């Protein structure tokens, strides 16, 4: 048989997208430039969209009057308390589903049924159950955060190396230690990516939670600006929400870097 001796070039490079440092900021700048030019030359009507300068002025005004801190303080409190209630109970239920057959058979279908329910649709019920005060706002955020945390937690537990657990069990290590020293660290990466998703859902639900009876809060401010057609404050509020999301993502990134160092 004749051998084909052509040289074979390496073709299996994959797509391997790399992080190009300046492209991210440049994209933001391009959007900003388009917005600026569009509003100044009048392709974008002043009723449809405020100019970047008006939005900046609205933001500065909110900082100077101290209004911003009032709104941020109220919203962060709701996010932290609601998120903590939903997140901690979600992790507990998720671990139970990951470790126990009874929990898996009972709680998992329940969580799968709860997850797709739009929490905004339940708002009127939450108001009857928890009133129009802070409790109904915590509840809305807690419910929204709960399901993704359950799914992240039990997915993380399922993903822990079975051999490690079996080995620990063969050596007679108590179950408590297996959970604390093998299952928990093994599930941590999945838990943290769950927190990323849950935090974004929490921020989305913040606006819904603050629809009812909230005098302060970023979500309440965005809604009120919409009702007042103050589009500059509306966009400023949306930017604050998006900055909140970026900050949370950054903080989770920092936590990931320190807590997951052991992975090498």
């Amino acid at each position: 048989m004749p051998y084909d001796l052509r040289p074979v070039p390496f073709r299996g490079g994959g797509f391997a997208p790399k992080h190009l440092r300046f492209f991210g900021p440049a994209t933001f700048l391009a959007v900003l430039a388009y917005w600026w030019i569009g509003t100044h030359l009048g392709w974008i009507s002043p009723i449809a969209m405020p100019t970047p300068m008006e939005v900046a002025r609205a933001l500065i005004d909110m900082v100077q009057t101290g209004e911003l801190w009032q709104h941020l303080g109220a919203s962060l409190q709701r996010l932290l308390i609601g998120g903590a209630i939903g997140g901690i109970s979600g992790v507990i239920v998720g671990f139970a589903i990951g470790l126990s057959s009874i929990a898996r058979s009972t709680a998992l279908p329940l969580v799968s049924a709860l997850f797709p329910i739009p929490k905004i649709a339940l708002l009127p019920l939450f108001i009857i159950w928890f009133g129009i005060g802070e409790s109904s706002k915590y509840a809305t955020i807690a419910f929204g955060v709960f399901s993704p945390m359950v799914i992240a937690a039990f997915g993380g537990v399922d993903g822990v190396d079975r051999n490690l657990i079996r080995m620990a069990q063969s050596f007679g290590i108590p179950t408590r230690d297996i959970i604390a020293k093998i299952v928990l660290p093994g599930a941590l990466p999945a838990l943290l990516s769950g927190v990323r998703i849950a935090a974004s859902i929490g921020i989305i639900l913040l606006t819904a939670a603050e629809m009812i009876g909230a005098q302060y809060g970023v979500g309440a401010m965005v809604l009120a600006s919409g009702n007042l057609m103050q589009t500059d404050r509306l966009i400023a509020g949306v930017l604050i929400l998006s900055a909140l999301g970026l900050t949370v993502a950054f903080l989770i990134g920092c936590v990931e870097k320190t807590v997951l160092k052991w992975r090498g």
Partner: protein
Amino acid sequence: MSTFGKGTLIDRRVMLLGTGAFSALGAKALAADAINVGVLRFVSSGGLYLAIERGYFKAEAIDVSLTFFEAAQPIAVSIASGDTQFGLTGISGGTLNLAGRGALKIIASQGGEKKGYTGNLLVASNAAFARGLTSFEALNGASVAISQVGSTFHYQLGQIADAKGFGLAKIAIKPLQSLPNMVAAVKTGQVDATILAPHIAGPLIAHGDVKLIGPLSDIADYQYGGLFTSPKILTGNRDLAVRFVRAYVRGLVDYNAALMRRGADGRPVEDDLAVKAGLEIGKYVYPSDPPAEAARKVIAAAVYCDPTGKVDIADIDRQISWYKSQKLVDASVETKAVVDTSIVP
């Protein structure tokens, strides 16, 4: 015509057809104005409904089709976007901001508060009433449900706070986004009080669900509704706006003649004239009720509307400066940019 020639009957019919076609043609040349008007199913738009029912718009060669909205704000937005040409809605922080930016103009008035006439009512929850929330003064320190920040309810609360001298900051304002939420919150005592339109408050007070504190017309006269249109129509098709307002004002005059009369007991007169107007308006405001019931409700809930359609400039001035003081309306908004008094001087 004689080619049909089988006697006078047919001739007459053909002649009738001929004149029919002629008048249809004539009307067609004029009736090019098919317009869309944004409204709420409120009795305060009764003038418009009467003008439609009694053919006043047809007489001005305007073909009106109505688009019903659930909230005041979207009506203003739909005029700004050109989806509707005219709209009857509340003069709120949102509509004033849009008008100040040149998207809208108020060209005539709609509903308002006037002493002695039916209007919005301040009601307290049973629990708060038992605790002593029985007067406007007692609102100092109470929690009050409103629909939205910058709504006419928000303004009326401000009027109470100013009139009684305690300042709006003393009231815990709870924006609940919708009327059903406001009703639910005051019925269950989650807020101490709220302001409700008479047709909603009446049955609640009668059932003992809430307690009446007083009518807002005791606090101040207030023009809260307006006829809005876009500046584009005022400059490009002014004649249409003039004809529209003429028909609308004829409706307002009829509305006043039928529904603004008060008997010796101070209650609305309920004679044939009132019932006829009630039936005509009821079709639009309470479409799911039996006509007689709808008419009765309309008569009971007919709020004050100025019969001339005149916009009270001094009042709009007061409203704009209050909204500005609360930072609910941009500092650049001016009364003369918001109101056009050239059609109803």
